[in-house]
């Protein structure tokens, strides 16, 4: 048996002898890791929800726009018909590659909605109904009438609050007025096909959907678009999709924006929440590290005489330190495995259908104007689980270093007389 294996054997027996202490320490570490995996998967799931919901109401996971449109919102910064065709072809190709799930070509303009009763400033969004429906899920928000279909040339889908302000009902007519691409003020008569309610005042009071073709003709910009919104097959595909779109669109002059750039306020909110999580995880790590440090150091102090004897018998100071270090690493490994299993089990057993926080809120859970589902469904990300395990391993190893150094610096003549 090599000397290192002998140290390993001694370390294992040392841990076994101090069963209660070892189990307590391992439990603290395992619980820490389990909580870490659980909280990260919940946070990850919540972020995924936020992003999904947020970008569906905004520009999707990835947006193709003309440069300057994001800031100005003006029709002057629109994608020309050839750019739209190129972008749609690129999107179709990436859909084939499995990167893109949904896309919608939109022509958006600020205008005025007028009825016999009132006039209200609105955002008018020309869309292809069957493409926009699944992307923004506006069809699901219908509370009266119905969502647009392909042949609704003059149909309009409006927010309930807007309809109320304009005194509109299903089938009512009203006029949309906006500056067209030719610089002239253009008017368009439309008829209420259906009404939606999202819970977001900004949308419910100020958004009108109409067919893209009608919008293009009305605004003298047929075939043009202001945004091609894209939902990827998962938020982890955003960067790859954006990069692939950029490659495919090359020199067309179209701008590709991932959601972090097109919806910066949502990105800031996710980052802010991330920082909160980092602090929580940092505290958790610190507690776990102190637990290991305490257990391993106490074990060293308690067994000072034993380490002195080992050195008297011929173990070098370095080997004595290695013995202590190996004990710490074993403890960490054991706890890591148990903690990982417990973390998965805890998340899976209790929260696979989501953590329902609705009991905490009297009303809808609204953050930055977005209504969120109070049921948080955890999401496991292999990289995050690996990160958590890695952190615990690093902490376990780091917390074992000091006791190991302490053990290697014992004075054997004093240690063999230790009465602790």
């Amino acid at each position, binding site marked *: 048996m090599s000397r290192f294996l002998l140290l390993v054997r001694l370390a294992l027996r040392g841990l076994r002898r101090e069963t209660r202490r070892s189990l307590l320490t391992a439990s603290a570490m395992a619980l820490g890791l389990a909580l870490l995996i659980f909280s990260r998967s919940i946070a990850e799931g919540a972020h995924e929800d936020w992003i999904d919901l947020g970008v569906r109401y905004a520009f999707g996971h990835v947006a193709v726009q003309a440069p300057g449109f994001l800031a100005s919102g003006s029709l002057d910064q629109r994608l020309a018909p050839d750019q739209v065709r190129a972008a749609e072809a690129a999107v179709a190709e990436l859909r084939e590659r499995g990167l893109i799930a949904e896309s919608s070509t939109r022509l958006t303009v600020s205008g005025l909605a007028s009825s016999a009763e009132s006039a209200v400033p609105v955002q008018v969004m020309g869309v292809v109904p069957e493409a926009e429906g699944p992307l923004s899920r506006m069809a699901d928000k219908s509370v009266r009438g119905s969502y647009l279909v392909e042949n609704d040339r003059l149909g309009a889908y409006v927010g309930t609050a807007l309809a109320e302000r304009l005194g509109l009902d299903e089938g009512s007519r009203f006029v949309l007025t906006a500056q067209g691409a030719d610089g002239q003020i253009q008017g368009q008569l439309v008829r209420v096909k259906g009404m939606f309610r999202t819970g977001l005042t900004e949308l419910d009071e100020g958004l009108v959907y109409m067919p893209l073709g009608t919008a293009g003709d009305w605004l003298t910009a047929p075939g043009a678009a202001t945004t091609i919104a894209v939902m990827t097959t998962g938020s982890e595909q955003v960067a790859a999709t954006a990069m692939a779109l950029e490659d495919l669109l090359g020199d067309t002059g179209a701008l590709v924006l991932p959601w972090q750039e097109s919806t910066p306020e949502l990105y800031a909110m996710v980052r802010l929440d991330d920082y909160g999580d980092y602090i929580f995880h940092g505290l958790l790590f610190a507690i776990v590290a102190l637990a290991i440090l305490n257990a391993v150091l106490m074990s060293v102090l308690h067994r000072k005489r034993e380490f002195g*004897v080992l050195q008297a018998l*011929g173990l070098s100071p370095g080997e004595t330190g290695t013995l202590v270090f190996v004990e710490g690493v074993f403890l960490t490994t054991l706890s890591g495995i148990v903690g990982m299993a417990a973390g998965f089990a805890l998340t899976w057993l209790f929260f696979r259908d989501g953590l329902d926080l609705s009991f905490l809120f009297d009303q809808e859970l609204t953050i930055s104007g977005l209504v969120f589902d109070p049921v948080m469904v955890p999401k496991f990300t292999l990289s995050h689980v690996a990160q958590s395990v890695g952190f615990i391993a690093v902490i376990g190893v780091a917390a074992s270093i000091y006791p190991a150094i302490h053990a290697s610096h014992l004075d054997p003549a004093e240690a063999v007389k230790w009465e602790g």
Partner: protein
Amino acid sequence: MNRTVVRTEDLWKVYPQEPKPVEAVRGVSLEIQAGEFVAMAGPSGSGKTTVLNLLGGLTRPTRGRIWIGEDEITALSDRELARLRLESIGFVFQAFNLLPVLTALENAEFTLLLRGVPAEERHRRVRELFALIGLDGLEDRKPGKLSGGQQQRVAVARAVIGEPALVLADEPTANLDTATGAALLEVMERLNHENGVTFLFSTHDPRVMERAHRLIHLVDGSVESDVAQGVRGGVGHDR
């Protein structure tokens, strides 16, 4: 022909302490030959344990030189000292100091294990030695399941199993009752007589002093007398 296993030259150990440094060992010069059975006696605080620790390389002298066999150990690194202890020195402590996680056999074979001796040979040697010192059948017991006398015999077995040049025993009978202490002494005498193991004890115990072949008296860290007492005595002389 006699072979010197330990030699010291003007050995000093001073512990820095306020208000005045403590001179635990003061100018000790000794020579011990192979096969000697030497007791070092003296009152508490006379420096007996410190001398043993110095000879065993567990602590470093403030001044002076120590040779174990041909090797001067004073200038060795910690790692080299550990190697020297493993190969040339056996320790028996007053409080037995067996490793509680190991069985009697594993404790006894420990230094052989560190030296990389194959398991079969280790076990054979331990069993032979256990038979010689009356530990037959106790191989698989943990120290907690052994009596004080049995534990100290395992400690002696651990000290001599590697056939070191010198066994240093710090008051080995102090924690044992009279009968057990006498039995242990017999075991060590037999190992000295039959196997030629060289022993140096520190002791308060008059029985140990009587049976030693050479008796060194330490007083206030200095050798007061060094007397050959028996037929196996080596270089004894009065001071």
